[in-house]
């Protein structure tokens, strides 16, 4: 039940993000979509992913996007509104993708796949959260991607700071 509330909220605010022409409204409806997706993660037994979604997306990426909107458009004139192009073709392509995906999802009988029959109701077992096992996996099985991720974040940090610097003033 809670899942459907979150799902409808996510779809409605995502649709509003696409339909509205005001950039700030689009940013704030993206906020509602990200929050609903975080709620769905909680319902799917992924508590750490939900918290990460809240901290990284809502706390980081969305604030960055709002800064991007405010720094790249003058609020008083028309540039806070975004214009639409390719409306017919875009709707056609997105609709075709949606129809194709839905058709194949409904046709595929995914829940009858053999490896999906192993589900237990209490997937977490006697643990109450996934935090400990995610931490253990990060330090054992996924240690190389983990270190590469830290390198990637460092490079992205330096690159973003370098690109955004005004070279004339320095």
């Amino acid at each position: 039940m809670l899942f459907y509330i979150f799902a409808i909220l996510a779809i409605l605010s995502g649709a509003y993000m696409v339909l509205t022409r005001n950039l700030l409204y689009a940013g704030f409806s993206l906020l509602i979509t990200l929050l609903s997706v975080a709620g769905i993660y909680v319902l799917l037994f992924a508590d750490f992913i939900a918290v990460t979604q809240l901290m990284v997306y809502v706390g980081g990426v969305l604030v960055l996007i709002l800064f991007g909107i405010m720094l790249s458009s003058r609020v008083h004139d028309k540039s806070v509104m975004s214009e639409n192009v390719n409306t017919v073709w875009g709707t056609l392509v997105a609709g075709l993708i949606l129809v194709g995906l839905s058709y194949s999802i409904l046709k595929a009988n995914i829940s009858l796949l053999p490896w999906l029959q192993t589900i237990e109701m209490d997937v977490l077992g006697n643990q109450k959260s996934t935090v400990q096992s995610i931490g253990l996996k990060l330090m054992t099985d996924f240690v190389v991607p983990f270190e590469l991720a830290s390198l990637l974040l460092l490079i992205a940090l330096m690159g973003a700071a370098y690109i955004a610097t005004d070279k004339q003033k320095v």
Partner: protein
Amino acid sequence: MEQIPLEHILLLSAVLFSLGILAVITKRHAVVVLMGIELIFNAANLNLVAFSRYDPSLLQGQMFSLFVILVAAAEAAVALAIVLRVYQHFKTANLSEIATVEK
């Protein structure tokens, strides 16, 4: 607590994915295109987490989606820095107007 049917999660993710595609194709402001890309990332993550429920060792899908979130954050930072530079240079962030190669 009853199980959420897997098809419903996949359908939700398909809807979010096509909304993101729609935003990327039809919007002309660079920041809104980035928002559409974030929506697509979220749709992909939803699939990964949904299938991760059925994993016997439980967490591979969740680990993958963790790294997807990380790369998305790095991508957003760099892309917004580029958008700011483009705005300073062209005085607009409209993708139709900056689709020319000029000095």
